């Protein structure tokens, strides 16, 4: 609140000074608990709206489905069954976890668009004038986007039998945190961009400019090995790469996928926990930037 130092240097009598500082301290504690409640309700509102907007839910599944069925089936036939270094995996099987990642990527980033939307339609004002800390807004929004994206990604697991991928309960249990981590990284990235954006159009332009390259370079559509040097660099700079690879490893584990799919960095094969940590750290940094951006604005 920044009022503390002012109160201390202000030329006032001791009694007044104490009462001001006393009130300030109580206010700080009040504001902190209010902020935690605010994180919850901001998150809850996002989910409520997500759940209410069934069409968006259906529409956002259409795109991954289209990719999987048309693009995936087409390329599977063209490439034949032996895709992926004699693993016996078809292209559609290889691509399937990538499409889960794609659903997470798109949902997380479009989820953040609601911030710009709220700003345009005035609701953000109601949140920003509330007696809460600004970080609560960024955190609530990020967690809201994370949850939506995670659900959207996990829904696609029902398609596993269709593409011939075997899943078991353990795989699904392992997948939940991995989907959450990827969703968190990308949702926070979206919130960070949204915190700097003024208009819906601006956000859409920037997102389209970033989202497609992020998707193409993430390893969702092809293995990130034996690529030209410049492309290898770009794929390793893409935060989505570190989130999609572990999902692929876990999803395809039961289908005889070779571990060789694992992402390498400077020639070292990354473990799933390392990849998850990288994604998590990326999300944390993005969220931090978003918090700073929210706090800076008047």
């Amino acid at each position, binding site marked *: *609140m920044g*009022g503390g130092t*002012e*109160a201390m240097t202000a030329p006032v009598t001791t009694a007044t000074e104490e009462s*001001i500082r006393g*009130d*300030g301290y109580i*206010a700080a504690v*009040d*504001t902190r*608990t*209010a902020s935690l*409640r*605010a994180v*919850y*309700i901001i998150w809850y*509102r996002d989910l*409520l*709206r997500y759940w*209410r*907007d069934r069409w968006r839910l259906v529409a956002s599944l259409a795109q991954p489905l289209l990719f999987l069925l048309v693009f995936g089936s087409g390329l599977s036939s063209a490439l034949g069954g032996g895709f992926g270094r004699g693993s016996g995996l078809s292209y559609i099987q290889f691509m399937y976890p990538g499409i889960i990642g794609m659903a997470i990527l798109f949902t997380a980033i479009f989820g953040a668009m609601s911030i710009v939307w*709220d*700003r345009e*339609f*005035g*609701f953000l*004002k*109601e*949140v920003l*004038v*509330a*007696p*809460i800390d600004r970080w609560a807004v960024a955190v609530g929004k990020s967690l809201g986007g994370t949850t939506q994206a995670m659900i959207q990604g996990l829904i696609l697991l029902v398609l596993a039998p269709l593409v011939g991928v075997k899943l078991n309960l353990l795989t699904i249990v392992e997948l939940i945190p991995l989907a959450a981590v990827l969703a968190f990284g990308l949702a926070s990235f979206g919130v960070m961009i949204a915190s*700097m*954006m*003024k*208009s819906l159009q*601006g956000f859409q332009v920037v997102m389209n400019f970033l989202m497609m390259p992020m998707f193409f370079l993430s390893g969702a559509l092809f293995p990130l090995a034996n690529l030209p040097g410049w492309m290898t660099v770009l794929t390793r700079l893409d935060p989505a790469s570190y989130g999609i690879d572990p999902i692929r490893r876990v999803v395809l584990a039961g289908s005889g996928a070779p571990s060789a799919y694992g992402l390498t960095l400077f020639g070292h094969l990354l473990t799933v926990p390392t990849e998850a940590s990288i994604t998590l750290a990326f999300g944390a940094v993005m969220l931090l930037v978003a918090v700073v951006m929210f706090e800076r*604005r*008047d």
Partner: protein
Amino acid sequence: MTETVIEARGLVKSYGDIEAVRGIDLEVRAGEIFGFLGPNGAGKSTTISMLCTLLTPTAGSAKVAGIDVVRDPSAVRRRIGLVFQDPSLDDQLTGRENLEFHAFVYGVPAADRRRRIDEMLALLQLSDRAGSLVKTYSGGMKRRLEIARGMLHQPQVLFLDEPTLGLDPQTRQSIWTHLNGLRANRGVTIFMTTHYMDEAEYCDRIAIIDRGQIVALGTPDELKKKVGGDVVVITSSQPDAAAAEIKRMLRVEATRDDGTLRMEVRDGKAFVPRLVRELTAPVETVSMHRPSLDDVFLKLTGHAIREEEASSGDRNRAMARRWAAGRRR
């Protein structure tokens, strides 16, 4: 009930070289309905924003509910309710959900939440539509919901920035009935801005603001007494000639406002026949009325508040605001 709830001393807000608010002093007492009246661009919204801690004053100080707005904005915000000029509801949620969101963010205790929401919905006659999505509400219902929301955390002061802007007269009337009800019922102090003169009549006290300064402050009756006697208005095809004649022959100063001339006279009934008899310039219409706040405003500032001007100004300002907001963010 003479406790001071809002106190401003020498409040100034400038943007670069432009001084939007140029030193405002005022005191608002507990339980009052205080109106801030002035044309658009006079500094009403800027002043209310400073009192609500949304803008930091360039100079001067203000206390709301006994708390300094610069030193502890959060504490001030917990004690005030806000109804903005522009809509700020989530229209994808129901009325009740909007209130629930607010209750959470403002830390209304869980045990009281439901009861208070029900009470406010009933008070503003929204109970039967509480479960409908806000996007199905009329303009007046949305406003009432915003007022209900602003009152939910039991603020000491409810700030409303042009709460009746863009509403039809009937709806405006009902908003006023509700505001009066809230004051009677909850003892809340109401501070509002408006550029509708007729609405200012509902206020206990009014501050008239023009070009960033308060030019008059008092009850509507006190202010009207500043204009003596009756107001006579004539229209003429040669207003300048008529004004000169009136001054020469009747010794009355007429203020020109487009094609109309206004003059304050002690006894209108005796004045009008003389005027008609002695004036050689063509007179098209003559009317006479008791002083209204419009007359007060005209007398104090030398210009009228015109609604049509105001509304186009609003549109421009709304656009400019959106643009400015966009640039800032």
